[in-house]
């Protein structure tokens, strides 16, 4: 049988997408490489999930469970411990080869949603040198060891990167009796949500050091110390500022990279700004019939928006294929990225997400089409770690192939 939509990834994006497909009367299939659905939420036992969507403070597993229960109720088919090794475009849609414990399955689907999440940036990718002892872990891997496997991989650690996962792990390790000697951030401003800085660091007396990075690790079998340096404006270590800190763990929270290996093999374009799958307002990628959702599109900071993007993709995937006329959305130099980066000529009311490039005060987000303003919203404060969501109605103008759509973060008039 041919599924209407095959969703690769059973995390929050994939789950929401599957439910949306079912609601539109379609037959979805979720392919999940782990043994259980829920994606990374399974190991995020802290709360704060669902504030926007459910107006509740849920833990990761609880948030995931809300969707998993519905998926089960709806009788949506899922394949777990299932790994997609090959996808081919066919006249009907797509043929997937999936490795499972019951053998290699061939799956036919009309449309695809790549809800494949992200992976973590590694120590080597941030030029950490020295020896190769155990004890240098990405925050996600550390989180898995602590929350799922129930072991403490470190007792005294340094955290590099003030991204949310690092901040969460700082609190987690402290709650389990470990000592976090400090969170070191190469940028001059913290990378995580403000609420995490206060709830994970300030509340626990964990120091945050800005404009510093870890350059070297020491130790044979197990980490014994790290070398910390000040950095300049280009985040390059400044010679002569090195300090040695003795510790047995270096937890890295130095960025997430949207995982689009499968998509790239299908030929999807990766956004140079958002670093994930480039898409339109329906979350359809540059390859017709292939949609993206969740962190595979861009690194979200609220799972509520991940679910939203899954729903938008799921609903859109159930629509008939049409010849798309896509118009680029140009972001200005104050904007890190806007998702979607393109909109259809036929676009109506769209959800859009954006991040500012710096810490700004009193800015107004303005969208113009051929010079005409169709959207404007004031922000007293904008920070790169806090992603913003807006709703833009493109029906306010007549979009044409040649329309110039610009997104700007301007100075607000006082």
């Amino acid at each position, binding site marked *: 049988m041919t599924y209407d939509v095959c969703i690769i990834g059973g995390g929050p994006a994939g789950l929401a997408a599957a439910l949306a497909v079912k609601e539109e009367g379609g037959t979805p299939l979720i392919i999940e490489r782990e043994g259980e659905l829920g994606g990374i939420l399974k190991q995020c036992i802290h709360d704060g999930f669902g504030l926007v969507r459910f107006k509740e403070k849920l833990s990761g597993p609880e948030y995931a469970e809300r969707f998993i229960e519905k998926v089960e109720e709806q009788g949506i088919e899922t394949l777990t411990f299932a790994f997609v090794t090959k996808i081919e475009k066919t006249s009907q849609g797509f043929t997937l080869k999936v490795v499972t414990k019951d053998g290699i399955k061939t799956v036919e689907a009309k449309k695809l949603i790549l809800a494949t999440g992200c992976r973590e940036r*590694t120590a080597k990718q941030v030029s950490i040198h020295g020896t190769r002892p155990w004890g240098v872990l990405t925050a996600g891997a550390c989180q898995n060891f602590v929350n799922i496997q129930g072991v403490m991989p470190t007792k005294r650690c340094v955290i590099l990167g003030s991204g949310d996962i690092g901040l969460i792990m700082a609190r987690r390790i402290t709650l389990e009796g470990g000592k976090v000697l400090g969170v070191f951030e190469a940028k001059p401003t913290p990378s995580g949500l403000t609420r995490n800085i206060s709830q994970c660091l300030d509340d626990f007396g964990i120091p945050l050091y800005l404009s510093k990075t870890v350059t070297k690790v020491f130790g044979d079998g197990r980490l014994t110390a790290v070398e910390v340096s000040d950095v300049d404006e280009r985040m390059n270590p400044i010679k002569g500022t090195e300090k040695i800190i003795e510790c047995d763990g270096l937890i890295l929270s130095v960025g997430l990279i949207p995982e689009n290996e499968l998509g790239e093999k299908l030929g999807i374009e990766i956004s140079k700004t958002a670093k994930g799958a480039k898409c339109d307002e329906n979350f359809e990628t540059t390859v017709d019939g292939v949609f993206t959702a969740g962190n595979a599109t861009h690194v979200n900071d609220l799972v509520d928006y991940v679910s939203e993007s899954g729903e938008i993709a799921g609903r859109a995937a159930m629509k008939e294929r049409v010849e798309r006329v896509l118009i680029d959305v140009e972001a200005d130099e104050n904007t890190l990225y806007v998702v979607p980066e393109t909109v259809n000529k036929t676009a109506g009311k769209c959800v859009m997400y954006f991040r500012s490039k710096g810490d700004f005060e009193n800015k107004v987000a303005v969208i113009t089409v051929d010079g005409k303003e169709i959207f404007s919203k004031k922000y007293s404060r904008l920070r790169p770690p806090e992603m913003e969501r807006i709703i833009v109605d493109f029906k306010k103008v007549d979009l044409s192939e040649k329309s110039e759509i610009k997104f700007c973060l301007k100075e607000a008039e006082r």
Partner: protein
Amino acid sequence: MNIKTLNKKLEKRFGGAVIASEDEYSVILSGKVDSWEDMLSACYMAVDKKSDKHVVNDIVVSGITPSKTRLPKERDKTLDGEQFDVAIIGGGISGASILRELTKWNVKAVLLEKESDLALHASGRNDGEVHPGVDLNKGSVKQSYVVKANRMYDKVCKELDVPFKRVGQYAGFTQGWLLPIVWLFTLQRRFLCGVDDTRIVLKKTIKEREPKLNREFAFAIYNPMAGCVSPYNLTIAYGENAVENGAKVCLDTAVLSMEVKNGEIKSVETTRGRIFPKVVINAAGCFAEDVAKMAEDRFYSIHPRRGTISILDKKSGGIIKSIASIKKLGGHSHSKGGGMLHTVHDNVLVGPDAVETSEKEYFGTTRESIQTVFDKQKNTAPSLSERDIITYFTGVRAATFEEDYVICRGKRTKNLIHVAGIQSPGLTTAPAVALDVEKMTVELLKELKCDVERNESFNPIRKGIPNLAEMSEEEREEYIKKNPDYGIIVCRCEEVSKGEILDAIRRPIKVTTIDGVKKRVRPGMGRCQGGFCAPIVAKIIAENENIPLEKVRKSGEDSEIAFGETKGGALYDV
């Protein structure tokens, strides 16, 4: 050069701080200098290509005390009192290949390796190139082996089930005027040195075959017989085949001292007790000199030289299909300057550099050495970018001052065979060297009045761990049907199943560490560098070995992955 002349030279340079003496086998330098570089200069000065003598370094360098040899902390008596025909010290490519060849005979052989796995030193820290031998001139021991050994690789790798590819090698020259000289050079190599695959290719051909190489290359020396292999997998394969044929491999076992009487090794004290081998083979890499000293047969010295290699994401694998480097007139004589290589796993390796060091087993990397290599290699392929690096590693070469192998019987100690100073092309020459050392060992055993007979049940064939991602769909399906664990993918980046991971920890040489699994079946070698799979691999090891998760090790001792359970313990089964 006679010793008087040498001393005059040394006097001139070091003002009496260094003096040379000699004995039957060596020129010995002693004294005190202020820097490692000065010591190296002095020792190089004493090298005489026309003489058989090796340089022994007894110079003290003020301010530098090389670290003590790292020894296993665990001690027991599991080997105490055991007698062996042959004891091989060192589990690198040399030791492992010799061990395997020796199992063609009914000899009781043991290999002693101080680390927790084979190939953890130089043999596991190089680019895996199987050299064509074009860069070696006649006259050295290493050159005498290289072509012969290169031609053995297809057979050896087939027998041992180790992937091997003859990808070819380009040494590119931008200085077009060098063509006539280099052409003569290639003739010398082809006809006098036996490197009969050497040829010159011109700009157009290079561009067709390797479009991403420097377009300024006017011509290149091309050797189609150059190849690449995974050096640690080959070492492990040799070791496993040896064990399957009856040999013994002892990991985490170091040699502490030897009892030598009347020019003969009577016993060897190890961290697992005292053993009584008839013949000892010194294949101890950077520690070969230390072992020679223990055996009272020190007539050469090792000066370690480290090199760092970067590994690029498979997505950049298209930058080069083969092996390439840029050559310029003038340059280091002792290092090839590194290059770029496409591995059997489709990664690209960039490097190595060559830096003299006093540390035999410090494998740390530095930003500077990666930068140096990349600055140079951007001349080989301009689109090379540091952004494509997924990881890097360092190896330490065991170099004698003569920069050549020492493969011979002991000079003063009669039941000893040295296989020392094995630096590049040590991986390439290993199969041929192993055959020679096999011969030498059998002869020596016969001289020592030991009955040596052929092992009629010797089986050269070793079956490796199945690689499901490379199989056809049908074959893969069959494996999964027989064992569902082969259908559960654990490492997403390299597509490695639970079944393969379990295979990796159930091999003839039992290694149950995260790094051991990584070397054998690749989880942790992909772009996420183990971020996703390390916790799962650890769990699989813990379950299979029936040990608590926190006791699982990354590699050696002291690398246990956790300090104990959290307050709640494991939440649920993953």
